[in-house]
Structure formats: structure tokens, C-alpha cells
């Protein structure tokens, strides 16, 4: 799978939510694009990742 331009191995099937937690992301503070389409927060748990997926994960930190 591609994630932020890098190849990531997916040894076992994972949902997007599981992958984000594993990669230490705060699921409430990211925007995620999967194969060019935005995935909204409510769909992280039901989105099953496959090894042909291409993810772009943008992390937001506080301050403005």
C-alpha cells in the first residue's frame, strides 16, 4: 500500500481506523484521502484497506 508517498506493508487486513491508530495518528485530528477520495471520520472504522490502496494522511496540530 502507498501511504504519504511511501510503500507500507499490510501483512494482515486492517481497517483505516486500525491503521491510523497503529501509526500513532489521532483519528480526530487527521484528514484522509484514499485513492483520491476523502474518507470522512464516520467511515474510518468501516473502511477496509487493501494493498493496492493509496493513502494521503494530513495531520493537524493545535494553534491558529
Amino acid at each position, binding site marked *: 500500500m502507498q501511504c504519504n508517498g511511501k510503500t507500507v506493508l499490510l501483512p494482515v487486513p486492517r481497517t483505516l481506523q486500525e491503521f491510523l491508530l497503529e501509526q500513532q495518528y489521532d483519528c480526530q485530528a487527521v*484528514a484522509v484521502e484514499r485513492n483520491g477520495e476523502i474518507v470522512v*471520520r464516520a467511515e474510518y472504522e468501516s473502511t477496509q484497506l487493501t494493498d493496492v490502496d493509496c493513502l494521503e494522511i494530513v*495531520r*493537524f496540530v*493545535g494553534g*491558529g
Partner: protein
Amino acid sequence: MQVAVNGKIKDLGKGVMPAAEELENMMMARHTPTVHQKLKQGRVAIAGLGGLGSNIAVMLARIGVGQLLLVDFDIVEPSNLNRQSYYIRHLGMPKTLALKEQLAEINPFIRVETQTIRVDAENVVKLFGGYSILCEAFDKPEVKAMLVSTALANLPHITVVAASGMAGFSSSNRITTTRPMKRLYMCGDLATAAEPGMGLLAPRVQICAGHQANMILRLLVGQAEC
């Protein structure tokens, strides 16, 4: 005070607003007519009027962006004055109205609309559906993420210029503009969160606001590269 307008010397009173046409001619001379027209037709929504949003609104008003929508639920507090574009006389006022008042003193010939409301996933489409450029200028990471995700997922014609990472006083040069998604530009160092011991200070916040305002300007004149 004397100024040159279209090659003629004109007398302007001190502190007196020139007529709309006079100001427009001066701005056109400064910006070139093509750029001026594009900016005049520009419409930009700004979500969050803190250190980023208030300074971005002031910059966009100065360059004559024709219509601005200012959205924030909050009032001006003393702690805001360290980086946000407000004055003592605005303390206790809604940020929307305090900012609208300033913009009217900078450029009274642009349209400024305000919504004093808390943005949530339910009202994003209604608030920003009429705009093609949305500036994300919130403070809390989860609200930033909610706005960006909801707007990109539900408003296929919108481009978002967002910010992440501008606290503290580490090098200015770490703040950049990137384009991680086709319709998302990110300004900031993408890492430095505001937290105890790492406050938000005017210079770095305004550098980030400048990145956002310049990216919006570039989009308005048709430059999509960051």
C-alpha cells in the same frame, strides 16, 4: 495631502476616505488592472478569526478581494491581543463584528459578510457551499480536521487553504506551503502544536497567515502551484 491620480495631482484631506473610483484607480495602478479585476471578483470564506483568520482577512481586504465571509462564534478577549488583529476597543465584541469594523476602515468598497456561529459538520455545506475558496483558520486540531474533511467530501468545487503548526519561535523558514491533496493546501511547519510552554506568538502566526493569504491570492489570479 497631495497624491497623483491618473497623472493629475489631487488634494486629499488628512484621514479622509477617497471616493470609490479614486481608490480603485490607485489600487489598479498598484496591482496592475488584470490582477486588480481578478481580486475584485474574488470571493473567499474564512473560518476562524483568531491569529490566522483575522490577519488573513486584513491582508485580503488590503489587496481588494471583492467579497469576504467571516465566520467565528467567539468574542475578543485580552489574551487575543498578542497575535490577533484586534484592539482594546474590541474587547468583549464578537470577533466577526470587530473585524468587519477594521476592514471597513481599510477598504470600505469590498463586501464583508459575517456569521457569528460555531462551525460543525452539520452546517459546513450551508455556510461555505457558495464559495470556491475556503480558508481554514481554526485553533483546535479536531475542528480543523472536521472542517477540511467535511468541506472536501461534500463540496466538490471548493479548494481549502488550511494551516497546521505555527506555535513558538523556531525558524521562520520551517513554515511552508504544500499541496498534499488536489484541493488542499497546507501552510505551517506541520508539527509544532500550541501547548503549555509552546505558545502562539505574533511573528510565526503571522508568517503562517501570510502563507495562507498569498496562496489564496495565487489561486485568485489562477496560479494553482504552491
